[in-house]
């Protein structure tokens, strides 16, 4: 699905502010994501990207501002309710349900996140495991997975909730080129299925391959916006993100 100017915004952030003591991580952020879009979020470490995801999904409460999902104000809703409305996220540091099997991780997410009866989720969960390359580990404890498989599980579990909006937090970090290519194909496939993707990523080539628009977050503000290949050439972005001085 290709977004156009006519598609409605699925996610809108209006005047989002958040500070932890003296550190400002969101300083009046306004952002709109259209249905079917793939938005990349760039920014140096500590820019507030993961906190922004927390505020979108409800695990972090903003000091001010509103979060709208499909036009409805969800700022006061719990993370669980936002998930059931169609928001799913992966975590930067994988957070598996370690004592459950990989398959059970997906069944839990599908039956609560998508609100389906447990038995009704089995086929779909098996299908997601197959697509994410986790079928061989289906009956193994999630706590025993290696890093790549943990990252795959993050994505698979988010997909199990039947998301309309998928928030990916550095899922490509630590992967080899080959593994990264597999992941990019998978995210493209998800997007082609009509899911809106917002992706925080430091692995630029992965992000460029998927995102049709990129924003850059720095010091709690969005400092640049545009096509991925254009944005990284903006001098201010090169300075804050890659450490290249503007006069170089």
């Amino acid at each position, binding site marked *: 699905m290709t977004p156009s100017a006519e598609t409605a915004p699925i996610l809108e952030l209006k005047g989002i502010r958040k500070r932890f003591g003296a550190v400002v991580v969101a300083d009046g952020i306004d952002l709109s994501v259209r249905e079917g879009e793939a938005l990349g979020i760039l920014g140096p470490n500590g820019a507030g990207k993961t906190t922004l995801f927390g505020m979108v999904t409800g695990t972090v409460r903003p000091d001010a501002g509103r979060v709208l999902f499909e036009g409805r104000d969800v700022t006061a809703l719990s993370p669980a309710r936002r998930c059931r409305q169609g928001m799913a996220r992966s975590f930067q540091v994988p957070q598996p*349900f370690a*004592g459950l099997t990989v*398959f059970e991780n997906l069944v839990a997410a599908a*039956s609560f996140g998508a609100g389906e009866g447990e038995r009704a989720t089995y086929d779909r969960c098996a299908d997601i495991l197959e697509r994410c390359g986790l079928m061989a580990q289906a009956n193994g404890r999630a706590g025993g997975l290696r890093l790549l498989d943990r990252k795959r599980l993050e994505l698979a579990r988010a997909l199990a909730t039947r998301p309309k909006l998928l928030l990916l937090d550095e899922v490509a970090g630590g992967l080899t080129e080959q593994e990264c290519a597999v992941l990019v194909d998978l995210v493209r496939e998800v997007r082609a299925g009509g899911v809106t993707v917002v992706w925080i990523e430091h692995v630029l080539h992965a992000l460029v391959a998927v995102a049709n628009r990129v924003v850059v977050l720095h010091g709690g503000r969005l400092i640049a916006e545009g096509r991925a290949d254009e944005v990284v050439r903006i001098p201010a972005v090169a300075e804050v993100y890659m450490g290249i001085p503007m006069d170089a």
Partner: protein
Amino acid sequence: MSAIHVAHGTRASRIGLPLFLVLLAVLAAAPWWTDRQGMRLLGEIYAYAALASLWNLLAGYAGLVTVGQQAFVGLGAYALFSLSLLLGLNPLWGIPAAGLVAALAAVPVAALTFRLRGAYFAIGTWVVAEVFRLFAAQFTALGGGSGTSLPASVVASIASGRAAREQLLYWLALGLAVLVLLAILLLLRSRHGLALAAIRDNEVAARSCGIEVDRTRLVVFVLASACAAMVGALIFLQKLRISPDAAFSVNDWTALVIFIAVIGGIGRVEGPLIGTAIFFLLRETLSQLGSLYLMVLGAVAIAVMLFAPRGLWGVLADRLGWQVFPLARRLEARPPMLSTSSLREPS
């Protein structure tokens, strides 16, 4: 037809479950093969198996490590004595009524203690239990701090004759333990069992997967409290006497219960049952050693925590794949259907 199928049982559970049912049938027939003392001991074993299973449900599945289970054991006992002595309710009806009272009391207790996390929650539940004990000690209608006994007329209303009463209470104790176990199994077999395990493993991720963490925990806490209260009511109905120190004893109804769950294995339904068997084996063989017996219990607990932190059943289950109750969800490929050609006689 779907190409996959989800199996709940394993080969071990297909053997273990029938053996467990045979054991239950043998125990149900205990009044015909053991004496009064034996029935009393078995009744005590059932009570501890139930309490340890409930503590395991809270700590091992819902991540609620409570040190205040005695609050609901004592509340159940006091509810039964109050309803029987003050309102004239038959003590047998007092058992479910005690469960109801505890379920109602568990809601404000949860509202208070769920604000706390980890060790603070554990201490908080203990404080609540102490408050309950102090309230009971002020309850002069039931003897205040020194407690009271059930009068002969109330005792007689349970059953005609001592032998009949002890048999009835024995079956009630077995039935209640089975009921508690069944309730736990049904809960864990449902999707709410997955939610509990998810909450235990990662609360933030569980919330992000659509699981209502606080509501799920509240439901389990209320259920466990109601069941603990019914067990407590039955324990003191067998004793026929109650006092605040006995009913709200942290040693008897929580410390020993934690010991049982730890040595058996937390986070597995079989763990507390095995732990109960080991505890009573140690108690019945070593209790004449006095304080040395308590030192042996401590040494066993330390050894298990150091060398088998998942408990004795945890070691067996991990190494041998043993499982009595079919709670797993194993994804398996469905065997291909026989084609008609494979059914033909060879030419």
